[in-house]
């Protein structure tokens, strides 16, 4: 898994390439925590090149979502989630915790 971060005026974009599993989720968690700890709570996860997310990966995103939505100060939104990944997310009822966009620009523009 590779992560890259881009800080924009109103949100941060986290591009996640590859597999998010128990081995790599801690690195994602660290990246997300660094953003939240900087007082930034509007986060776009660009999953265009994410090909696998285990439940450990979803918990990482959900923990960040909780922190971001607290006090209505922000939100984590997802971009371009593979249909297979999305259906596994819906299977455990987690789909409702995230807004999903098909287009990075639209996601960034939502903040």
């Amino acid at each position: 898994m590779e992560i890259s971060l881009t800080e924009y005026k109103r949100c941060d974009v986290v591009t996640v390439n590859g597999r998010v599993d128990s081995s790599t989720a801690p690195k994602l968690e660290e990246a997300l925590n660094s953003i939240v700890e900087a007082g930034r709570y509007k986060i776009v996860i660009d999953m265009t090149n994410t090909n696998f997310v285990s439940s450990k990966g979803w918990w990482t995103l959900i923990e960040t979502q909780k922190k971001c939505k607290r006090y209505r100060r922000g939100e984590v939104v997802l971009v371009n989630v593979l249909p297979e990944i999305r259906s596994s997310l819906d299977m455990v009822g987690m789909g409702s915790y995230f807004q999903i966009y098909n287009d990075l620009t639209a996601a960034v523009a939502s903040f």
Partner: protein
Amino acid sequence: MKTSSFPGRYDSLAKVSEFVVEAARDAGLSSEEVYAVELAVDEACCNIIDHAYGGEGKGELNCSVIIDDGKLTVILSDHGKSFDPRSIPDPKLKVPIEKLKPRGVGLYLMRKLMDEIKYETIPHRGNVLTMVKRKHEDT
């Protein structure tokens, strides 16, 4: 039947995935079905590391794959702690996010993703999890 053993650590997960994904493709499963197998196996391996062994580096993950007409069977075994899957309740879904506890969907996902799933504790072989994924008629 092909068998492979991996160290019981998280950085084995990508390798286990490669191994089962190749078998799932060879079995002629659709890309959705291949992903289902990949995810179920990943969740199962994490449970072995986390719960049967109680952490990384305590034991092996043994994985076998069997392809026969229209289905893939994946067998995972470990020598760690046993448990009774029937004693584990389904997770509560649709909980408001603030109330979610970050655990308890692995087993549920495995059951939903696979067509059959069986857990046995067999003397000398340890805990054996057998999961079957069938190819859908119209693929």
